[in-house]
């Protein structure tokens, strides 16, 4: 257990699907599993409270702090009302809320403690709480996301949280509830066939997740504005600035991307950041300014209607911007996890593996299938193989075997949310090239002639079970 102010930090998506309907899609289920994994971590942590910043709780007048000791309601999301109601009751650390508000007050921003019956807590915070801290084991603190705030201000409000923790002598789990890219699909959508709304958004999400997997939160914070512009980041992804301010503006974390999935076209991820150095508070007087200068100056720039709508005779004067501190080549800390999805697929509809390997494994945008033969689940007989009493092969039918192989592959692919049409590479192993190639090739052509994956066929001395053909396949998920 580290000695800093933060036990661990998480970035989670606040889409309600992973809570209310995880069964509707493998994507929602994987998000839900990743949530469950961090819930167990939180249960074992030494933290005194769980601190939420959600992009779904927007404020205009500075910052709001939930200060009702036990806010309770039957919540229905404005958009996802068909998924059902969520009854909630939070236990709020009101003393911390007070102390955090005082720190933000000292920065000169308007603050308000919220203690009103029926105040609508946002869906994102509710979903995170339900999945991470359902029994209120840790008291919660919730701060709003200012609609207008830019990098400098948001970072300072994050720093203020660290000072409030220090002043209260408490240690926190920090949770940023935010999507990455936030562009919804507008057409009818089948949750089983998920996708990020555009390739560009997906690529930008992965850039950010790559940095987070390396624990480089400060680097993410420096890329945030560009990311938000390119991928319609959720509330400009400004939550990253808050989290970075709170965590001390550093890259000293072990990062882990536990899930990255599309939800209605948006980029939903579950990320864990473990401090490799104790997180300390930055004193108010040292509270760092970012490259933009003051918020007021930026507001001027953003709302300079006359400046923008009239032709310039001279170039507009801009604040000097410091060089980005983002290194060209980010060094990987030890114990790095990868940003890409990486998980096993085991299909009940396929024969038991004969060793300790899964039927398939997804890594990033690729599905890798283990070698698959004609064997059937829960069945001793192998299609197209006739054995004598001692288990020696008496006869075999390569047509029947090849058909069974392809059918088995189809089943594994479908349980991974893919299909035969998405196969991109096939390696085929035959135990008797001379005798079997022709028939194998006919069956193959029928199945893959239109799909046209790349293919390699080799003869091998033997396969692990009494079979004559096995395929090794790669596919798109």
């Amino acid at each position: 257990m580290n000695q800093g102010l933060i036990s661990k930090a998480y970035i989670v998506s606040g889409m309600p699907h992973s809570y209310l309907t995880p069964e509707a899609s493998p994507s929602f289920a994987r998000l839900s599993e990743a949530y469950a994994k961090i819930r167990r971590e939180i249960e074992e942590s030494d933290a005194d409270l769980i601190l939420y910043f959600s992009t779904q709780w927007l404020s205009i007048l500075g910052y709001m702090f939930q200060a009702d000791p036990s806010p309770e309601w039957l919540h229905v999301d404005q958009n996802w009302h068909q998924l059902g109601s969520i009854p909630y009751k939070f236990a709020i650390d009101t003393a911390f809320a007070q102390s955090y508000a005082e720190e933000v007050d000292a920065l000169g921003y308007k603050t308000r403690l919220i203690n009103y019956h029926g105040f609508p807590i946002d869906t994102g915070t509710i979903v995170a709480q339900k999945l991470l801290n359902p029994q209120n084991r840790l008291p919660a603190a919730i701060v709003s996301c200012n609609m207008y705030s830019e990098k400098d201000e948001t970072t300072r409000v994050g720093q203020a949280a660290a000072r409030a923790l220090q002043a209260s002598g408490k240690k926190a789990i920090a949770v940023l509830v935010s999507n990455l890219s936030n562009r919804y699909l507008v057409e009818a959508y089948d949750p089983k066939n998920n996708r990020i709304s555009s390739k560009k958004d997906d690529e930008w999400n992965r850039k950010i997740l790559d940095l987070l997997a390396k624990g480089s939160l400060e680097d993410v914070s420096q890329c945030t504005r560009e990311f938000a512009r390119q991928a319609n980041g959720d509330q400009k992804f400004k939550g990253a600035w808050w989290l970075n301010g709170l965590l001390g503006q550093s890259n000293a974390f072990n990062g882990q991307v536990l899930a990255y999935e599309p939800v209605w076209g948006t980029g939903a991820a579950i990320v864990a950041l473990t401090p490799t150095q104790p997180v300390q508070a930055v004193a108010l007087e040292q509270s760092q300014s970012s490259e933009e200068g003051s918020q007021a100056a930026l507001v001027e720039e953003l709302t300079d209607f006359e400046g923008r709508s009239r032709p310039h005779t001279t170039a507009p004067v801009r604040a000097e911007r410091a060089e980005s501190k983002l290194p060209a080549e980010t060094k990987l800390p030890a114990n790095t996890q990868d940003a890409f999805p990486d998980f096993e697929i085991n299909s009940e509809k396929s024969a038991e593996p004969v060793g300790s390997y899964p039927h398939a494994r997804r890594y990033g945008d690729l599905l890798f299938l283990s070698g698959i033969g004609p064997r059937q689940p829960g069945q001793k007989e192998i299609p197209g193989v006739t054995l004598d009493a001692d288990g020696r092969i008496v006869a075999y039918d390569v047509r029947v075997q090849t058909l069974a192989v392809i059918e088995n592959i189809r089943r594994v692919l479908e349980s991974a949310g893919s299909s035969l049409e998405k196969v991109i590479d096939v390696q085929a192993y035959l135990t008797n090239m001379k005798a079997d190639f022709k028939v194998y090739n006919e069956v193959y052509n029928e199945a893959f002639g239109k799909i046209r994956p790349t293919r390699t066929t080799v003869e091998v001395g033997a396969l692990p079970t009494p079979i004559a053909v096995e395929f090794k396949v790669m596919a798109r998920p």
Partner: protein
Amino acid sequence: MGKGSIVAGVLAPHPPHLVYADNPPQNEPRSECGWEVLRWAYERCRASIRALNPDVLLVHSPHWPSFIGHHFLGLPRFQGLSVDPVFPHLFRYRYDVKVDVELSLQIRDRVAAQGQLTSVVENPDFRLDYGSIICLHLINPSWDIPVVLISANQSAFYYSNEVGADVAKIVGNATREAVEASGKRAVLLASSSLSHRHFVHEPEIPEDMSFERIHHHGQYLWDMKVLDMMRKGQCRELLDIMPEFNEMATAETKVGSLNWLLEALGVPDYPAEVHGYGTVIGTGNAVVEWTASKPRGAQ
């Protein structure tokens, strides 16, 4: 059953401040005064709408933002407590709203027939959005006219103002057709401010009017430009510049409520009546009425 019609359209902004300053019994917080110019504008508009004797009030509301398509209410009554998530100190309002479910679903069907995604609220725990409640209260504080609420699709934020305008046009036309087929007299409310950059501070007494002014001059110029077009009946031209207005004035109309209203009205070429204009915490708000049947004098 005769042909129904949209008897009026109103640009009906929804700052909770106006309800707060009014001290109605449904709202818990109390005030001394405030934003009178806008409240008096609403008073005039209210009388004018009353005189038209509408059967139903239709609201397109930015505070029911829908990420996918448009949502409609499918239950006849919603009751509850609405607490403004941004100004909870000003607005904690007990509502009891009657819905014209028949018309709600008729509009839904026509929107869906245009290939748009729709969904219907059948969850009685659903809370109505404060934007709708506020403008409905200001137009009809006795709540004796049933309502239809239409969510505001957010595609302008994901794609562009032009895409948002196209979507609002489809919904506007579908609304008009459904009203005409229904035989009802409908008043449409576009629940929206104009320029929408707020101050991020507030005086100790929220209704301290010595604080109230426009956020910046650029916003004011844009607001006056669009109000002038409304007063001259130049709504086609207004729709043309709306994408630019939305950006330049950080306008709340970006979500398409005003587009929906103007399209549903068949893009008026007659003068609108500006009942009044005022700022609320820096944003620009006007109560504007389009009633084709009413003769207008000099404005």
